[in-house]
C-alpha cells in the first residue's frame, strides 16, 4: 500500500472505532439529502406538469369570447371562419370516472387548431383519421390511466366506462399531455358532455387579430396567468422549507465532523510527526469528506424520491385546491434533477466541512487539545457570532422596512429573505446568549460547588453543543411559526366556512328544471328562505377611469337575505355593513380580497366590467375574504347578476324554518325531481368536503415541518452521542470525589434540559416573528389573502416541551450508558 493509502486508511480507521460517529455523519447527510431532493423532486414533477399544461393547445393562443356573455356555439365558429378569421373551437368539460375522480375533457378540432400543439405528438395509432372518425380516440397522459382503472400495458385501445355509464373512445396514451386531462375530437367530446353544438371558447393564433370582430372580445394569451406563475410562490415556499431541512441536516454533519476531527487530533499529530505533509493531510480529509458525501448524498437522493412519491398526492391536492392547477401524482424527473441534488448535498457538505479542513490545516503539531485553549478560541467565536447576529438582525430590519412601504402582495422573495435573516440572527445570537447566561449564573453559585461545576462544564460543552442548539432553535422557530400560521388559518377558515355556509341544503339542479323546483320549494312550509346563486365570467376593463390590463374575473351572485347578511364576513366597507348590504341588493358590488389586493381596489372604486348589453360600471362597496379561491371574484346580488350579465343560475341554498328537518325535505326533493346524489348536498357534507380539502392542503406543510424538527432532534442526539465517551472522562473525577452516579446523571440531564429550555424560550419570540412574516407578507403574496395573526399558547408550550423532550431524549442514551458504567471503568478514565 502506498504511504498515501496507509494514511487514508489510518484516518478512516477512526470510524471503525467509532461507528456511531460514522452513522451520525451519514444520517445527517442522508436526512438532509432526502428532504432537499424530495422537495426538489416534487417541484420538478410539478413543473413538468405545468409545462405540459402550457404546451396544451391553447395556452399560447388568443381567445375570442362573445362580447355579451352569451354561450358560444358552432354558428359562431362557422360565421367567423367564413368571414376569414382563423378561429378554432374548443369544448371543455369535466367527466367523472367510474372510481369517482374528475377529469378534464377537452374537445378539439384538429383540422383548424393552429400550430404545433401537444396534440402533435407521434405514436398515436391511426393518426388523424382515427382521431376524427367514430369510434374516435381518447388521448391522455400515461399517469391519467390510473384514474380510469387501466393498467399501462392494457390501456391502448381500451374503452373504460365513466360514472354515467358512457364509454370513452379507445384510449391512446400520449406522454406530452398534462395529467388528468382527456383530449378527443370535438364531436366525441360534445357527445360525452351532451353539449350539442355548444362551445367553451374559440382560439386564434396569438396576435393574428389586431382587434376583436364586432360582438366579440379578444383575450390575449399573455393576459392569462399560466399555472406555473400562479404556483411559483407555492414552490418557492416548498423550496424554502427544503433548504431549511438541508441546513439543519448539515448542522448534524458539521457537528459530527468537528468531533471526528477533534478526536483524531492525536492521530493527526502522529501522522504529521511520521512525515505526512500538512497539505496531504488536508487533502486526505477532503477526500474522506467526498467519499462520505457521495455515500450519504446518493442514499439521500434515493430516499428523497421515495419521500416525494409519498408526499406528491398531497402536494397535487394542494395545488389543485389552491390554484386549480393539475399536477400528476406520479413523479417525472428530468436528468438534471439527479445531478442537481447531488451537487447541492455535496456542496453543502463541503461548506460544512470547510471549517474542519481549515482547522486541520492550521493545526499546531505540538501542544494539542487543551480544553481551556479551545475555550479561548470559542470566546473569539462568540464575539464573531454576536456581530454576525447583529448584522442579520439589521438586514431583517432593513427588509422589513422595505416590505412595509411596498404595496401588499409584493416582495415574496424579500419576505423569505426576512424570515431567513430573522432565523439566522436568532441562531447566531443563541451561543453568545447562552454563554453570557452561564457566565452570569456561574458567578452567583459560589455556595453550590456542584451547580457551579455544572455551569462551568456546560460552558466547556457549549462550543460543541452550540451548533446542535442552533439547529434546534431554527427548527423550533420555524415549526412554531408555520404551526401558528396553519393553525390560525384553520381557525379563520372554519369560521369563514360557518359564515358562508348558512343554508341547510345545497341544491344544484339541471338548469332547465331550476324554476320548477324553485316554485315547488316556495310553497313548502318548512323552507324559510331560498338562496339562489349564479356564476359567470367577465373581463375587468377599468378601475375608476383608469384602463387596467384586462383580467378575467369570476362573477358570483348571492341572495343577500336574512340568513346570509349577519354572518357573511366583510373586511372593509364603504359606509358600514348595513349600508353595504343595502347597496349590494341595489346593484353595487363586493370584491374578494384577492382581487382587491392584486389590483389595489378599495371600497368606493368603480369597476368597469364587460357585459352582454355593453360595459357595466359597478360601485365597490365592500371587500370580503375568500379563502381557497385562486381567482379574483366580483360579488353581486343574484338577480342583478342574472339580469345585467345574463349569467346562468347556479346552486340553490335552502334555509329551513326553525324546527324543520333536512332529511325529509331532501328525500322529497330527490324522489319528486329524480335528482342524483351530487345534485343535492347537505351542509355538513359540504363542510366536510371543504375541511377535507383544507387539511390536505396543509398536510405537506405539517409533514415537512415535523421532519425538520426530527432532523434537529437528531442533530442534538448526534452531538451528545459523539461526545459521550469524552464526557465520561470529565465526570470520572467527580465520581472519584464522591458524587454518586445517579446524581451525576441528573446533573447531566439538568445541564442539557436547561440549555434546551433556554433555546426553546428564545424560539418563542422568534417563532412568533416568523409567523407574523408568513401571515402578513408571504401569505398575501402567495395566496392573495391576509389572515389575522393568531397566538396559540398551547402551540408555544408544545414548542418548549418539544425542545426539552428532544434534549432529554438525546441526553437519555448517554446518561443511561453512564448509569450503567461500572465504577471500575470510571476509575480507569484518564484525567483530561
Amino acid at each position, binding site marked *: 500500500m502506498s504511504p498515501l493509502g496507509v494514511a487514508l486508511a489510518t484516518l478512516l480507521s477512526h470510524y471503525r472505532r467509532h461507528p456511531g460517529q460514522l452513522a451520525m455523519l451519514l444520517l445527517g447527510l442522508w436526512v438532509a439529502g432526502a428532504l432537499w431532493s424530495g422537495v426538489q423532486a416534487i417541484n420538478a414533477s410539478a413543473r413538468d406538469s405545468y409545462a405540459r399544461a402550457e404546451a396544451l393547445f391553447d395556452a399560447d393562443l388568443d381567445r375570442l369570447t362573445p362580447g355579451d356573455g352569451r354561450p358560444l356555439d*358552432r*354558428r359562431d*365558429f*362557422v360565421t367567423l*371562419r*367564413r*368571414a*376569414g378569421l382563423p378561429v378554432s373551437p374548443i369544448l371543455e368539460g369535466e367527466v367523472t370516472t367510474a372510481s369517482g375522480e374528475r377529469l378534464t375533457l377537452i*374537445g378539439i*378540432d*384538429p*383540422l*383548424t*387548431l393552429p400550430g*404545433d400543439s401537444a*396534440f*402533435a*405528438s*407521434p405514436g*398515436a395509432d391511426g*393518426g*388523424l*383519421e382515427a*382521431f*376524427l*372518425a*367514430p369510434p374516435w380516440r381518447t388521448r391522455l397522459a400515461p399517469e391519467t390511466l390510473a384514474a380510469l382503472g387501466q393498467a399501462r400495458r392494457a390501456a391502448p385501445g381500451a374503452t373504460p366506462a365513466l360514472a354515467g355509464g358512457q364509454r370513452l373512445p379507445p384510449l391512446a396514451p400520449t406522454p406530452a399531455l398534462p395529467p388528468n386531462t382527456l383530449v378527443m*375530437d*370535438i*364531436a366525441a367530446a*360534445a*357527445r360525452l358532455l351532451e353539449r*350539442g*353544438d355548444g362551445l367553451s371558447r374559440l382560439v386564434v393564433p396569438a396576435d*393574428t387579430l389586431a382587434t376583436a370582430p364586432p360582438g366579440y372580445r379578444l383575450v390575449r394569451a399573455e393576459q392569462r396567468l399560466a399555472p406555473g406563475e400562479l404556483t411559483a410562490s407555492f414552490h418557492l415556499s416548498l423550496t424554502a422549507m427544503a433548504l431549511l431541512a438541508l441546513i439543519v441536516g448539515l448542522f448534524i454533519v458539521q457537528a459530527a465532523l468537528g468531533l471526528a476531527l477533534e478526536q483524531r487530533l492525536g492521530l493527526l499529530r502522529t501522522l504529521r510527526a511520521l512525515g505526512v505533509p500538512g497539505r496531504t493531510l488536508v487533502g486526505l480529509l477532503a477526500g474522506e469528506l467526498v467519499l462520505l458525501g457521495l455515500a450519504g448524498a446518493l442514499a439521500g437522493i434515493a430516499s428523497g424520491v421515495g419521500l416525494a412519491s409519498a408526499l406528491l398526492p398531497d402536494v397535487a391536492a394542494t395545488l389543485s385546491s389552491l390554484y386549480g392547477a393539475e399536477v400528476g401524482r406520479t413523479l417525472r424527473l428530468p436528468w438534471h434533477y439527479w445531478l442537481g441534488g447531488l451537487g447541492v448535498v455535496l456542496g453543502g457538505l463541503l461548506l460544512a466541512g470547510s471549517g474542519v479542513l481549515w482547522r486541520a490545516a492550521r493545526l499546531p503539531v505540538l501542544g494539542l487539545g487543551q480544553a481551556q485553549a479551545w475555550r479561548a478560541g470559542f470566546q473569539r467565536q462568540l464575539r464573531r457570532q454576536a456581530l454576525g447576529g447583529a448584522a442579520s438582525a439589521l438586514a431583517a430590519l432593513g427588509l422589513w422596512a422595505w416590505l412595509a412601504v411596498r404595496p401588499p402582495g409584493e416582495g415574496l422573495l424579500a419576505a423569505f429573505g426576512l424570515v431567513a435573516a430573522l432565523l439566522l440572527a436568532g441562531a447566531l445570537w443563541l451561543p453568545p446568549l447562552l454563554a453570557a447566561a452561564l457566565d452570569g449564573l456561574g458567578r452567583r453559585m459560589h455556595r453550590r460547588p456542584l451547580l457551579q461545576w455544572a455551569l462551568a462544564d456546560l460552558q466547556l460543552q457549549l462550543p460543541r453543543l452550540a451548533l446542535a442548539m442552533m439547529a434546534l432553535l431554527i427548527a423550533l422557530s420555524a415549526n412554531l411559526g408555520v404551526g401558528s400560521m396553519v393553525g390560525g388559518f384553520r381557525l379563520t377558515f372554519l369560521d369563514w366556512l360557518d359564515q358562508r355556509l348558512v343554508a341547510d341544503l345545497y341544491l344544484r339542479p339541471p338548469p332547465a328544471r331550476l324554476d320548477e323546483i324553485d316554485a315547488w320549494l316556495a310553497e313548502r312550509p318548512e323552507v324559510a328562505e331560498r338562496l339562489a346563486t349564479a356564476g359567470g365570467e367577465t373581463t375587468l376593463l377599468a378601475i375608476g377611469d383608469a384602463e387596467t390590463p384586462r383580467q378575467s374575473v369570476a362573477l358570483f351572485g348571492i341572495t343577500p337575505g336574512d340568513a346570509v347578511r349577519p354572518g357573511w364576513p366583510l373586511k372593509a366597507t364603504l359606509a358600514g355593513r348595513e349600508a353595504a348590504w343595502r347597496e349590494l341588493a341595489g346593484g353595487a358590488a363586493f370584491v374578494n380580497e384577492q382581487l382587491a389586493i392584486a389590483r389595489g381596489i378599495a371600497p368606493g372604486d368603480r369597476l368597469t366590467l364587460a357585459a352582454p348589453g355593453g360595459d357595466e360600471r359597478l360601485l365597490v362597496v365592500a371587500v370580503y375574504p375568500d379563502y381557497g379561491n385562486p381567482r379574483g371574484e366580483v360579488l353581486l346580488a343574484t338577480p342583478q347578476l342574472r339580469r345585467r350579465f345574463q349569467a346562468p343560475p347556479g346552486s340553490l341554498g335552502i334555509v329551513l324554518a326553525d324546527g324543520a328537518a333536512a332529511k325529509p325535505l331532501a328525500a322529497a326533493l330527490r324522489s319528486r325531481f329524480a335528482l342524483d346524489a351530487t345534485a343535492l348536498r347537505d351542509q355538513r357534507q359540504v363542510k366536510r368536503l371543504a375541511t377535507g380539502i383544507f387539511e390536505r392542503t396543509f398536510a405537506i406543510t405539517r409533514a415537512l415541518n415535523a421532519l425538520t424538527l426530527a432532523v434537529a432532534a437528531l442533530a442534538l442526539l448526534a452531538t451528545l452521542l459523539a461526545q459521550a465517551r469524552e464526557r465520561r472522562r470529565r465526570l470520572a473525577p467527580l465520581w472519584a470525589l464522591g458524587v454518586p452516579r445517579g446524581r451525576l446523571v441528573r446533573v447531566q440531564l439538568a445541564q442539557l434540559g436547561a440549555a434546551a429550555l433556554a433555546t426553546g424560550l428564545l424560539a418563542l419570540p422568534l417563532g412568533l416573528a416568523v409567523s407574523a412574516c408568513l401571515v402578513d407578507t408571504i401569505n398575501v403574496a402567495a395566496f392573495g389573502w391576509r389572515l389575522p395573526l393568531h397566538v396559540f399558547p398551547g402551540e408555544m408550550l408544545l414548542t418548549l416541551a418539544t425542545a426539552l423532550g428532544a434534549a432529554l431524549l438525546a441526553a437519555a442514551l448517554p446518561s443511561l450508558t453512564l448509569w450503567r458504567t461500572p465504577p471500575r471503568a470510571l476509575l480507569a478514565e484518564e484525567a483530561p
Partner: protein
Amino acid sequence: MRGRALAVTWLVAGWLVTGLLVGCERDPAGEPRAGFAGLGTDAGGFTPVAPEAALRFPEDHGPHPGTRLEWWYLTANLRDAEGAPLGIQWTLFRRALRPPTAPAAGAWAADQLWMAHVAVSRGADHRVAERFARGAGQGGADEARQAGVIADPFRAWLDDWRLESRVEAGTGDALDRLEVSAEAGRGEAAFGYRLTLDAQGPLVLHGKPAFGEAAAGAGGPIYLSQPFYRVTGTVTLGGERLSVSGRAWLDREWGNQLMAPWHHGWDWFSLHLAGGRKLMVYRLRGEAATDTTLFGSWIAADGETRALDGEALSLTPLATRSVAGRELPLRWRLTLPEQGLDLEVSARHPNRWMSTSVPYWEGAVTVRDRDDGAARGEGYLEMTGY
C-alpha cells in the same frame, strides 16, 4: 384523373397535423404500394361512380359524398396591366372518411374532410396557403358549415375561400360564369385574388385510362373540365393590388380509385394553345416503362374533344432541376403527330413547389414550337410523387 388528390389523403393530412410530414413517396418498407398519397388503394364500401351517360347538371356540379374523392380545381394563367405573367390556383378537395351512412352523430361529427389550397405566383414569388375543415355527407344544412359545395345555385367554399356561380338562374350552365376569391397571409405577406371567370366554350368530358374500375368496365372516376375561361379581376401580392386578365381552366373529378396501386405519381398538363384549342396530357408513372399510363384530350375551340392515348401522344422530359431537394423535370418535349405538333413545354419559374401537407409542384408553363421556337401557348403543369 389528376389525382391531384394530394389532399386527398387526409390520412396524410393527419400526419401534417400530427407534425410528422410523411412524404407519400416514403412508404414504409414492406407496405404494399398504394399509389401516390394512398390514391391507389382499394375503395371498398363506397358508391360506384355512375356512368357518364347518367351525368346531370347542375346536380353533378355538387358533391358526391358516396364516392371517396372529389375536387374542384382551378388554375389560371394571368397577366397584369404591364403584361407581366402571373398564375393563381384555387382548389377544394373532398375526401370521405368512410361511406356516409345515417345522419352523423351530432353537429360536429365528421365523415367527410375538406382541404383547400390557394396559390399566387409571380416570378420568384410563390405564395401558398392550405386549410382544412370537417364535413358530413348527410344531414345538416350545408350553408351552416365551414366548408362545402352546393350544386344549385353553385357555391363551393372553405372558410372565406369561395368559388361561386354568377349565372342567373336558367340562363346556361352554372359554371359558365364564376367568381373566385381567396385571401391568405398577413401584413406584407398577404396575398389573394378576386376574379371573374367567363366560359367561352362548353364543359368537356375526358376519357378514362385503362386500369382499375375503368378497366373492369365498372364505373371509374368521372373527369370533367371547363378549359375555356376568360378571366378578369384583381390579385393582391407583395403589398400591391394588380388588375389582371387571362385564361383559366377548371377541373372536376370524382371517383373511388384514381390511380393504380403501382403508380407512384403523375405529370399533368393543361395547355391553352393558339386558336382557342386546348390540350390535356396526363401521365401516370410506374416503376417500369410498361407501368406508365399516358393519355389526354385534344379539345377544339368549339369544345369537340378527341381522347388521346399513348399511341397518339409522346411525352419526354428534357432537363431536370433541383427544387426543394428533389430532381424535377421542368422542360418537356410533347409531340402530337396527328396535329403536327412538336412542342417544348417549360416551367416559367422552377420555384413552384407547394409545401402543403402533401407536397407537389404546380406552376405555369410556356409552350413553344420545337422547330422555330415560336410561342404556341401557355398552361399549367402539375407533378407529384417525386
